[in-house]
């Protein structure tokens, strides 16, 4: 008969150290890699657009989300598909992701490009975010600590879900 029990250790006696990274995250894909992942073998042409105030209002009304940037980082595929790079900022996280849309405006694929997480003040600070712009896997970040191998993270994809709603509304209002 095997005996099982709980043993309790106060933190003072826990031999393994607790440590506190200020922030961590991961870089998965550059813009070019994300394009290849979603539209393999296709040639994409850059066609950034700026939304008018009226379009912004309409997108916000339809998606029930805020449009933080008027510029849409958009590429078009030869077959009529769309590739959009977008970012979402949560209370603690900053995520850039790519959304591929089929010619009919349905979602083809979503790929996360970078994920950053912080529990300090930095996340809403433009300078802090700016350090990630243009970074890719060949230019590793100093802060780069992986989110892999962390249990209990319960990362929410709610902000990405809202971001995709906003992209779909953008398609209806400005791309269709």
């Amino acid at each position: 008969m095997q005996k099982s029990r709980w043993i309790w250790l106060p933190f003072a006696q826990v031999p393994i150290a607790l440590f506190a990274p200020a922030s961590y995250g991961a870089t998965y894909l550059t813009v070019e890699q994300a394009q290849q992942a979603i539209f393999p073998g296709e040639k994409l042409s850059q066609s950034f657009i700026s939304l008018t105030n009226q379009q912004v209002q309409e997108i916000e009304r339809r998606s029930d989300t805020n449009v933080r940037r008027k510029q849409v980082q958009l590429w078009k595929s030869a077959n009529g598909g769309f590739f959009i790079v977008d970012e979402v900022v949560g209370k603690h996280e900053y995520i850039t992701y790519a959304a591929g849309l089929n010619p009919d405006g349905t979602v083809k694929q979503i790929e996360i490009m970078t994920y950053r997480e912080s529990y300090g003040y930095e996340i809403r600070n433009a300078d802090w975010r700016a350090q990630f712009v243009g970074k890719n896997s060949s230019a590793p970040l100093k802060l780069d600590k992986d989110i892999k191998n962390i249990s209990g993270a319960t990362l929410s994809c709610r902000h990405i879900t809202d971001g995709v709603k906003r992209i779909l509304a953008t398609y209806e209002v400005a791309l269709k």
Partner: protein
Amino acid sequence: MKSPSSELRRARPLLGTIVEIGARGPHASTGIEAAFREIEIVHRLMSFHEIDSEVSRLNRSPLFTPVAVDRRTYEVLSWAQRISALSDGAFDVTVGAKLVAAGFLPVPSNSEWPCEKANFRDLNLLPGKRVLLKRRTWIDLGGIAKGYAVDRAVEALRQNGVGSGMVNAGGDLYVLGASRPIHVRHPEDASRLFSLGTFADAAVASSSGCFTECRRNGAATDPLIDLRRNSALRWKQGVTVLASRCLIADALTKVVRLAPRRALKILAQFGARAVVIDRRGVRYSVHETETRH
């Protein structure tokens, strides 16, 4: 060109979280694609939110009528029922109505309100991958499907010739092949990490109430329902379970939280171990046959 030792990693929003998959070796790319496909299938079959999922279909199917389901759904329900029986209902996938009432899940469309007294015993698994409901209940596989999806993804990596990699579905994870250090977040301070040690071919799942959105009277309430007290739990503990399969680890975190004494025997039965972190310290489950020689 990537060197053979470097790991390819991708992340996609799935299962209500961010799923990260990493793989090494020449088949990393095809393996990761196949692994994400498996997770997408589990997501489509078992989502409570998506009206076309098999779970949603079961939640509005007529009573006393066998419903054929996908082998994956059947497999998850079979494990769920087994763990429900072992834990005497501490784990119970018919908890959906309580989660809806507490605001964690949306009200399913086209389904009548479930019977108050319904529980896992009203869900019968019949031969031929058929399911029969004896009382109206809303099944939610949120406490087990994520772990299952991780297991399926790991299997896809293996079948595609990936010998080393990892799958992390928002904290429910599996380390394939080469050993890696695993950390768990402190339940009260997400910036603090607690080192669990180094593991290979092992699953880890955690459950804690701290990072959920719902707050009641200032206390974190999380989407875990104690059916015996009929309420959502408020607590400040982080439970982590290590097991050979992520499905087991995922489901047993709930058993450890809701029935810690009974959980010891169930953990031992599955060869699993638990670590509970709260503000005072750490509790470990100890199974003495493990150390006896």
